[in-house]
């Protein structure tokens, strides 16, 4: 008799490959009848994963259109099916996949839009860190402050893009969103001070400073690096700005 493991092996292969016959042990009056019944599981699986990708990438869905999105999603599911049952953790490489599809090279910003959507979802589920607000700066001696390091907030993510992905994302949230000049580079900082996600644009100086601080160097080291790139870099303004957005959760002296 067919063991459970060999049935599940056959069923798994048939779910992954629609051209493959359904498992042998399905009782049915005809092969067509058995296939029709097994196809319900194929459809359920495809529908569920498609819905999951659409939930994770609503802006990509809007930009690509339903037909293109569905076709691309089906191909992605074939190529990179989920390994675990938590679907909010599925689809990290969908943007890379989309960007490689024929006909998409005209829209080189799509992968960055996907990264933004993926990071928003990660931030939505990130740990509930307390935000370190700029007022704390008043309580620290300047020399101690310069030697301090920050712990990034679990929900804070910086996406540095050659394209105006923050403005594009925002425009899609309005029913008649304005035209966006996509060739403008943007650095987008996602934060979640409490439970609602925030999306803010950060200057190139601010992004450089954030990147340095997230690498775990001291404030002085980060500022020195930024000043070596831009002699007019203003440490105080950027420190206050990033903290005000909710980029950090702890300061370590």
């Amino acid at each position, binding site marked *: 008799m067919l063991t459970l493991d060999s049935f599940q092996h056959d069923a798994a292969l048939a779910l992954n490959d629609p051209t493959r016959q359904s498992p042998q042990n399905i009782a*049915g009056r005809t092969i067509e009848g058995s296939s029709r*019944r097994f196809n319900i*599981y194929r459809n359920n699986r495809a529908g569920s994963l498609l819905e999951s990708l659409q939930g994770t990438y609503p802006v990509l869905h809007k930009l690509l259109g339903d037909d293109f999105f569905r076709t691309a999603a089906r191909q992605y599911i074939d190529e990179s099916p989920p390994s675990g*049952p938590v679907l*909010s953790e599925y689809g990290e490489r969908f943007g890379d996949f989309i960007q490689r599809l024929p006909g998409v090279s005209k829209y080189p910003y799509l992968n960055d839009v996907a990264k933004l959507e993926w990071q928003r979802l990660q931030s939505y589920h990130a*740990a509930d860190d307390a935000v370190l607000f700029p007022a704390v700066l008043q309580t620290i001696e300047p020399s101690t402050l310069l030697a301090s390091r920050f712990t990034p907030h679990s929900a804070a993510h910086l996406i540095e893009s050659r394209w105006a992905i923050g403005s594009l994302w925002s425009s899609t949230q309005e029913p008649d969103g304005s035209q966006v000049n996509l060739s403008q580079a943007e650095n987008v900082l996602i934060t979640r001070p409490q439970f609602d996600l925030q999306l803010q644009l950060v200057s190139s100086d601010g992004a450089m400073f954030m990147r340095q601080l997230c690498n775990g160097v001291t404030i002085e080291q980060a500022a020195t690096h930024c000043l070596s790139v831009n002699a007019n870099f203003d440490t105080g303004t950027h420190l206050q700005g990033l903290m005000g957005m909710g980029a950090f959760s702890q300061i370590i002296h």
Partner: protein
Amino acid sequence: MLSQQNGDKSSQDRSRSWLPVRGGLCLKPQHYHDILETLPDVGWFEVHAENYLGDGGAPLHYLEKIREHYPLSVHGVGLSIGSSQGLDEHHLSRVANMVQRFEPESFSEHLAWSTHDNQFYSDLLPVPYNREVEDLVCQHIDQLQERIGRQMLLENPSNYLMMDNSTQEEAQMLSNIVQRTGCGLLLDVNNVHISAHNCDYDALDYISSLPLHAVGEIHLAGHATDTAVASEPLLIDTHDRQVADSVWALYEATLTKAGAKPTLIEWDASVPKWSVFLSELQQADTILQSKQVLENRVDAG
């Protein structure tokens, strides 16, 4: 194996279900605010464990707030109890932590599999009904119950096909599993209606042959009909519409046999306005109340 003791505290803590005998609703993110602002008269809420396994954020926050006001059922959809390759230890520990944190009145999972060779198939896939599968499912339920420190409810699947290596009836295998593991049953009446139609047996006969004393919860949901082959329509478990009249009728007949049980209205796709949710709930509550009145009369008499 967990034995069914009576009386002492430890057996109470491991009880199958402490949900109130009322209608409950599945909790959807789009309803968090409505619920907390109006605290509607809903008997209890159910969530899918897999939607609440993140590190933090809005879902866990709102679930915690809503849990302060309502009894809670946690319903797993990804433990793949029917898998030939064992339970996923990592996923099991995440679910166990979630159950420990929210201390729900009930925890349930399905007689199905969804994972094979480290791939998740995102559907509740069928198992044949035979001794090999029964042994394996019992082993997994023992492991799960031990891990979460309580009894669980096992849900009957919606079937689209039968397998020729099944050597027993589904209801018989569920009865055996209940007896061997001490788990309870989550009787999905919509699934019974679908399976009975698709696999050509009598729904009420099936229900009558279950150990109804072990039913800790009932599920009701909407289904669709696939008429692609006109001579052989198939019912599909879609959870995207109101409960069909035929399923309400089977529900009433079930309660007549099993007594009033906590009853969930499931609605997972095309989620409607809150008012539509509430009207489905009221229908379940009305039926439950009429059964309870009858039961009380019988008890008094």
